[in-house]
């Protein structure tokens, strides 16, 4: 497999009154062609900011530090600016936002918004763009695409709007699709449909998908690999199956234990105590140690990245000290 997106040492800095905050602080991951990687974390873990950073859209006054590296195939995203950056956005990396209503312009028809995005990236006539827009709506399985072109966003249901957002993100024929909590505003049955659709599009287009979510339940069975993010860092990465079966990091275990199970013996859901610390005051060493049930003296210094199994790594002191 070849990697389409390679992120190394990604750091986002926000100036603060006393000390700067580092909501994303040294994130590494690779996205292989055609795979779905799930970036999982609680609110405040820095996962959404990571996705914006990939498009160089970190909101001011935040900045991406210069030693961060984002490589999109042959392109060094960090070295781009202006027009070159715009040719990446939407064209190479598509973004599906989480709020399906707020992400569509209320006064433009679905067709206008799609055609505009298509014509931003491809030199097509109005009618050709219109035809492609209709094909895109059909591809995201929106019923009656021709008629939907003339609809306004408020005339569609939540699930339909999410499909339109997907079509918009696909309009530039990107090789990477970032889906930031694509289903959080939808009810459960529609969630499943949208996720199945994203998975189908990934396969049919050979597109890599970065699925950002706080919901481990939707990751299982969909994503090829999962990266668990905590306090600005990825604490565990591996194939979804092995991470779920043999979680290494205490945080991942905590996340899995806090999910209700349908099979197996009845047991109480065990939440993780406390909440994610603030990015201007990360704990020293392992950032999870104040909440960790298995903390030990070593945890106050930076833990190493250690292998758990082939292709499965975590950032933790446990294996080094375990008997």
């Amino acid at each position, binding site marked *: 497999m070849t990697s389409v997106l390679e992120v190394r040492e990604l750091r986002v800095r926000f100036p603060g009154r006393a000390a700067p905050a580092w909501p994303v602080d040294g994130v590494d991951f690779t996205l292989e062609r055609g795979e779905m990687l799930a970036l999982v974390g609680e609110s405040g873990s820095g996962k959404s900011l990571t996705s914006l950073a990939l*498009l160089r*859209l970190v909101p001011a006054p935040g900045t991406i530090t210069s030693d961060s590296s984002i490589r999109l195939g042959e392109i060094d995203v960090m070295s781009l600016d202006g*027009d070159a950056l*715009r*040719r*990446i*956005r*939407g*064209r190479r990396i*598509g*973004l599906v*936002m989480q*709020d399906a209503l*707020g*992400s*569509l*312009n*209320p*006064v*433009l028809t679905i067709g*206008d918004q799609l055609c*505009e*995005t298509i014509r*931003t*990236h491809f030199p097509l006539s109005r009618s050709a763009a219109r035809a492609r827009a209709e094909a895109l709506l059909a591809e995201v399985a929106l019923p009656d695409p021709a008629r939907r072109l003339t609809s306004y966003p408020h005339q569609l249901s939540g699930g339909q709007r999410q499909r339109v*957002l997907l079509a*918009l*993100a696909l*309009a*530039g024929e990107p090789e990477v699709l970032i889906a930031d909590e694509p289903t959080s505003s939808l009810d459960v049955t529609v969630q499943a449909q949208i996720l199945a659709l994203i998975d189908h599009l990934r396969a049919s287009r050979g597109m890599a998908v970065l699925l950002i979510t706080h919901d481990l339940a939707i990751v299982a069975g969909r994503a090829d690999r999962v990266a668990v993010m905590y306090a600005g860092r990825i604490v565990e990465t591996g194939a979804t199956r092995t991470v779920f079966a043999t979680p290494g990091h205490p945080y991942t275990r905590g996340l899995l234990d806090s999910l209700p199970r349908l099979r197996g013996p009845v047991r109480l859901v065990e939440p993780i105590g406390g909440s994610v610390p603030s990015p201007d005051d990360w704990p020293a060493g392992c950032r999870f140690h104040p909440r960790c049930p298995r903390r030990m003296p070593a945890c106050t210094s930076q833990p190493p990245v250690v292998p758990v199994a082939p292709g499965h790594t975590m950032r933790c002191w446990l294996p080094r000290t375990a008997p």
Partner: protein
Amino acid sequence: MNELGRRLWADPAGRAGTVILLLLILAVIALPPMLPDHRVQPDIVRGAQPPSAHHLLGTDNLNRDVFARVVRGGQISLLVAAGAVLMSVTLGTLVGLVAGYAGGWVDGVLMRLVDATLAVPRLFLLLLLVAALEHIPLGILILSIGATGWLGTSRLVRAEVLRLKALDFTRGAVALGARPSRVIFTHLLPNVTGPLAVATTLAVGDVILLEAGLSFLGLGVQPPTPSWGGMILDAKPYIVSAPWSSLAPGAAIVLTVLAVNLVGDALSHAQAEGG
């Protein structure tokens, strides 16, 4: 926009204002060719004649038909209002869009400029502009009124843009590769048309009053071109002996401004209802 029009029509006050305004516009366009020539030789001996079958609203002190002059004056007043408002709304919208979208120092400089200019009363500014000229062509009058009227519009548009800029669809458009000009004109501008329509309509009323006031002070439309304000000025000495010659243009001003404000109010209600 169609939705806004429908709600305007559903409101009785809005419908009345729209009808009066349309009739006024139709009158000043269609009537002039049918009216007695206003450039007829003045007749000081006959002087002002009361309304009669021949002169519907009587004649003024120079024996000119008041009705014909009110209609022609209306043509000028509406032309000035349309021209000046078009100019100020365009200017104000552009400044507001740029200031709101760019933010930072661009926004700071533009808005401080607006604040500073707003600190000087508009009429005073206009008096300074036109009083410097000996002869005031109509074009200059329109330009001056237009150039002093965009400040409020720019603030309105800027505030709307700041609100819209924080919404996901604007950020989404950027994330999908839209260039700034596209974000501004395809995504932001269509979303400010509602409040802009209200502001524009109300501005027309303001400009008609402003032009009447300037002409009344002798600094607006220059005689012998008729204008409502100018006619009231001319008729001032005869307000007792020939009240019709000042009442008619006065009534025309009241009717027009009232109609415009009815439409503006109804539009702003329609705007608040549906958004």
